């Protein structure tokens, strides 16, 4: 069987439409994960041990179970609570909740990256808490987080095809649809792979550059 | 290996050697001839290209221009044709570079056994002999991390010697050591220099060592050989102003010495290195001195 270029071109618009949904889901999921991870990492530092336990437990459970099952779970449990969001939003929520457990660790690692001596020096200089955070700690903690968060962004991007299993017609879902109707698998799946490469390789290069830039700072 | 009559072919010749790292011209037409069996100390300010000279000879860097000859053969780092002369060169590094996952003994026997095909039992016997020479026979089964820096460096010397090189390169072998550990390493090197007819190149900041162990001292600055001569001459009557300035900055870093600023300062006397710690070598040296008198 040969790759039929004409057929490939004819299904390309449909796939690209799916790709737009893929990108939207990735960005939405990442926005949720950035906030969710922040909340989790604050809860991890809470005074009350039950709060810490819940935050740590959430992270452990989410990181030890497959995203696929988590999505199925959300897909079935949300309606039980009377939430009837479109599948796309369920998917975004799933991605966000899943990756919050990873970004939380990034925030923690970023803060631990700032040596204790920096806090002590800020105290010795009588800086206010606010200045200590905004002028001393965050400028050192955030740059090394950028490439780590970027890597999770790409990982999330590559996880979006799983949304097809809860009926979201993103890139992979669109390819499945085409394949289901035409019984041609070669072109749609190859195109999906190529579109993924076209988007992820430049992102990886960008992150590598950020990584080199920011690690020079230290 | 040649035992008495020194080979008339020089051990190494550098002809108009150039080396750049990107835009940075590190060696700018260096000429240097090292006689067979000669002990040469290379001194000079940091960044002057001393390490680069040794690394070129060891084949750890590629030439940017000029030629190097080793034992009369054109020498090109990494080339198959240069393999056999490259095998005759050994090196001791500033940071020892012992293999951390091998015992002291395996560090020394690994290359002779794997590369030269020496029988393990024979390699072990020779290794124990070498450890004895560097005063560490009781450390054979230790791992490098269990030794002090000075002991690690002496193991590294024994490891290089186990390959029986004809040229040994030492790149600031004592500058990563705590001051109290420097002496033992210097003594081992001095004993070695006095008892063997290996060609030896020392890059060092130990002026006392250079003054009393080397046959010739080379002063390098900014990628060229500025001055080269017998240690007595170079230390007591340097011709070049740059040499004088350098020696002054090393011998009197605080500028406390009295007298005119371009006067020649004395290098510490020979016993500053102290008596030998390797009786095995010392005996050989005494023997030779007696024969000479």
């Amino acid at each position, binding site marked *: 069987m040969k790759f039929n270029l004409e057929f490939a071109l004819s299904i390309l618009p449909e796939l690209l439409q799916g790709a737009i949904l893929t990108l939207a889901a990735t960005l939405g999921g990442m926005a949720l994960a950035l906030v969710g991870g922040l909340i989790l990492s604050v809860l991890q530092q809470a005074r009350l041990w039950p709060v810490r336990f819940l935050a740590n437990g959430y992270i452990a459970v989410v990181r030890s179970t497959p995203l*696929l099952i988590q999505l199925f779970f959300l897909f*079935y449990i949300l309606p039980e609570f009377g939430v009837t969001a479109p599948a796309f939003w369920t998917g975004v929520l799933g991605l966000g909740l899943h990756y919050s457990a990873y970004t939380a660790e990034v925030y923690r690692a970023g803060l631990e990256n700032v040596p204790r001596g920096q806090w002590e020096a800020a105290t010795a200089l009588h800086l206010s808490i606010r200045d200590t955070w905004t002028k001393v700690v965050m400028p050192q903690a955030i740059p090394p987080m950028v490439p780590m968060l970027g890597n999770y962004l790409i990982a999330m991007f*590559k996880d979006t095809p799983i949304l097809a299993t809860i009926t979201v017609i993103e890139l992979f879902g669109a390819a499945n649809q085409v394949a289901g109707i035409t019984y041609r698998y*070669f072109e749609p799946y190859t195109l999906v792979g190529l579109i993924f*490469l076209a988007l*992820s390789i430049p992102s990886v290069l960008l992150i590598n550059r950020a990584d080199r830039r920011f690690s020079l700072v230290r | 290996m040649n035992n008495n009559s020194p080979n008339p072919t020089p051990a190494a010749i550098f002809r108009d050697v150039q080396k750049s790292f990107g835009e940075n011209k590190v060696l700018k037409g260096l000429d240097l001839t090292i006689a067979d069996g000669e002990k040469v100390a290379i001194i000079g300010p940091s960044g002057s290209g001393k390490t680069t000279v040794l690394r070129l000879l060891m084949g750890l860097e590629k030439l940017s221009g000029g030629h190097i000859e080793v034992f009369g053969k054109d020498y090109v780092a990494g080339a198959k044709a240069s393999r056999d002369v490259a095998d005759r060169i050994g090196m001791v590094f500033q940071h020892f570079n012992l*293999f*951390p996952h091998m015992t002291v003994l395996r560090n020394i026997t690994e290359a002779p056994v794997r590369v030269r095909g020496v029988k393990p039992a024979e390699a072990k016997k020779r290794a124990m002999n070498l450890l004895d020479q560097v005063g560490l026979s009781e450390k054979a089964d230790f791992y490098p991390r269990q030794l002090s820096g000075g002991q690690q460096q002496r193991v590294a010397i024994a490891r290089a010697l186990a390959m029986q090189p004809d040229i040994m390169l030492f790149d600031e072998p004592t500058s990563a050591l705590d001051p109290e550990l420097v002496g033992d390493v210097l003594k081992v090197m001095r004993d070695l220099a006095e008892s063997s007819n290996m060609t030896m190149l020392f890059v060092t900041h130990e002026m006392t060592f250079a003054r009393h162990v080397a046959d010739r001292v080379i002063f390098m600055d900014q990628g060229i050989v500025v001055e080269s001569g017998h240690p007595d001459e170079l230390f007591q009557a340097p011709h070049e102003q740059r040499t004088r300035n350098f020696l002054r900055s090393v011998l009197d870093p605080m500028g406390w010495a009295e007298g005119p600023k371009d006067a020649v300062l004395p290098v510490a006397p020979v016993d500053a290195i102290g008596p030998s710690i390797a009786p095995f070598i010392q005996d050989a040296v005494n023997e030779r001195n007696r024969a000479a008198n």
Partner: protein
Amino acid sequence: MNFLPPLIQGLYNSLLVTLGASAVALALSFVAGLALITPWRVLRVPARIYVEIFRGTSALVQIFYFFYVLPLIGIELTPMTAGIMALGMCFSAYGAEVVRSSIQAVDKGQWEASHALSFSWGMAVRRVIIPQALRRMLPPFGNLLVELLKATSLVSLIGITELAFTGSSLVRSTGENVLVYLLVMAVYFAAAYPLSLLVRHFERRMTKAW
């Protein structure tokens, strides 16, 4: 109705897929990872392309590609082989980077000392570099193993009756969706969490230098 026995049977199959895929991944990680650091371009370039293709696309897409597209070009694979090969190759791309970066993290002085002792490249890699790099590789390989175990859930979509598949068919036959998926998660957790604890334990021990 007791859901656990079929789910345990499903877990068993998940573990089989994990085992097969990790064997494939481990072997290919070393092949590609070593190729990435050889001095020879003819090996480096193909290895880099291989790694970027498998890292740059999605595991699920790769599984579908192996299952639906390869037969079209004459490579017939059973679902099991397709799943194991796809996951194995996908994870070998990440593994290759682990091998490469662990080797490159070994002090440059070790290469130079090997060279000064006349070791060949292969001998230096085998005797000097890899033994030191292995310690560094263990924790990231452990993390990849946990990720792989979770990723085996994707092969349910090409009809392999592992844990996720068993869960979905129980849901279909009983309608108990929330309970069943909770149980499925619990079983995955029971398998993956101890593994990640083990990895963290090793991580702490391994970061100590020689």
